[in-house]
């Protein structure tokens, strides 16, 4: 019998809340974190997309000046979220050799990389910061969290674009089940609201161009959706072997019942229109957690608000859940905070855990005319009460490269 894995700590810093209580309150209320960017570089480079969803609490309000200097913005967010999750778990003593980290990023230290390139061109090699390499490396967030918490059972960095944060949960579950760790701090971090990634995502027509109305730009499932809104931040979850959590009398939010990762092998960016890879991921996560379609009451969908992305996810959900899908309520929380890329799966896992724990599904905003080809029961207006008894929520994440990751959260 595999070890049962539970979730005992949550942390987040996002465009709609700099900590978990604020994030949750706003997710239930339905607010937009997307705003016109005040940065000079938007005009300097005449970017086609002039808005994004920045973290509502700058990391500089939480971290010391020296910490800020020695960490890329993505790592700053990771450390902020991981510290909150760790404190929330209430763990006071732990065998550090049995504590691991699985902290994802989609893009890594892009600010550091490009700042250093500018410095090299403008001022020469002597002025390139000696900390450049450890700050730009994609394993920077995982390494910083490991260092901060003294986690010595390995620090892993799944990099699977926008599925990264959810894949971190998959790794965490496997580490505990296989007996390699008792506690894993999982998460994802991203800080890519920089002119170059903004220009690149715009070039591939992935971003919404609703410059005159940023708050309504992220509109998953709406017939007028025209792309995603770039977000930033981090989410973190403390996973723990159930017996470890019970022995210390921990508050248990939920069980991480099952996870899965699949690959489309279809196209480098376009989702498989039939959603076959996503369907296999959903079925595999349910099989992994011994979950029947009837157990599922809620889905935190990937739903980025792109014209081509939202529908295949529906197709996959229909294939995996069948007619029961009509009894499942779906939240598209990217409508509120935009797309946090490699952090999105972690933040949305935090929301799925809270939905199960509080038995309340957060709202989807900006859904005015639902795409008739996506007949999902979407939570709009007010939060939806979830039923009593044993319930399961799913969180889907899909990434460029054909990555699909699903986690299944069960009430305890």
């Amino acid at each position, binding site marked *: 019998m595999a070890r049962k894995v539970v979730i005992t700590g949550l942390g987040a810093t996002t465009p709609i809340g700099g900590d978990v209580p604020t994030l949750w309150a706003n997710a239930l209320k339905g607010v937009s974190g997307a705003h016109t960017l005040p940065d000079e570089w938007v005009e300097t480079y005449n970017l086609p997309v002039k808005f994004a969803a920045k973290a509502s609490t700058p990391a500089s309000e939480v971290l*010391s000046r020296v910490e800020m*200097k020695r960490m890329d913005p993505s790592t700053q967010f990771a450390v902020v979220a991981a510290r909150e999750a760790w404190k929330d778990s209430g763990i006071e003593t732990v065998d550090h050799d049995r504590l691991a980290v699985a902290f994802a990023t989609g893009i890594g230290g892009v600010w550091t990389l490009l700042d250093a390139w500018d410095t090299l061109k403008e001022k020469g090699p*002597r002025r390139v910061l*000696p*900390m450049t390499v*450890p700050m730009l490396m994609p394993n920077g967030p995982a390494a910083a969290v490991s260092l901060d918490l003294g986690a010595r059972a390995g620090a892993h960095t799944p990099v699977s674009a926008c599925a990264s944060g959810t894949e971190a949960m998959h790794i965490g579950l496997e580490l505990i089940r296989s007996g390699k760790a008792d506690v894993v701090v999982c998460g994802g971090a991203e800080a890519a609201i920089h002119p170059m990634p903004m220009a690149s995502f715009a070039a591939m027509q992935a971003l919404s161009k609703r410059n005159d109305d940023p708050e309504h730009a992220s509109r998953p499932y709406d017939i007028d959706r025209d792309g995603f809104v770039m977000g930033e931040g981090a989410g973190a979850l403390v996973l723990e072997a159930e017996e470890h959590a019970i022995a210390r009398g921990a508050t248990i939010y939920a069980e991480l019942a099952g996870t899965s990762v699949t690959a489309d092998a279809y196209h480098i960016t376009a989702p498989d229109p039939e959603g076959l890879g996503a369907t296999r991921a959903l079925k595999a996560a349910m099989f992994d957690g011994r979950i029947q379609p009837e157990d599922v009451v809620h889905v935190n969908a990937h739903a980025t608000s792109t014209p081509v992305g939202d529908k295949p996810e529906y197709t996959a959900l229909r294939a995996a859940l069948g007619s029961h899908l009509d009894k499942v309520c779906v939240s598209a929380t990217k409508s509120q905070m935009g797309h946090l890329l490699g952090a999105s799966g972690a933040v949305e896992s935090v929301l799925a855990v809270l939905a199960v724990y509080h038995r309340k599904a957060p709202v989807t905003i900006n859904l005015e005319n639902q795409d008739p080809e996506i007949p999902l029961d979407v939570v709009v207006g007010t939060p939806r009460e979830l039923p009593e008894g044993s319930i399961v929520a799913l969180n889907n994440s899909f990434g460029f490269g054909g990555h699909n990751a699903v986690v299944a959260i069960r009430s305890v």
Partner: protein
Amino acid sequence: MASNEEILAGLAEIVNEETGLETEAVEMDKSFTEDLDIDSISMMTIVVNAEEKFDVKIPDEEVKNLKTVADAVNFIAGAQA
């Protein structure tokens, strides 16, 4: 040309900026690694910032000889001369 006192004060500011140490902690007889707990990456950052601030060149091979704050102050004073 900065006096030794001015170089010490400037160096203390650079160390404070990089490590958060109080400027008063940066005293002539202090060892960068033993007393001030400055690692090699921070040391290189301090060196490059000192080069700019005092308009001197501190060759990489010289850095290992700068064990104490006094070593650095004396080297910078000499390089300015």
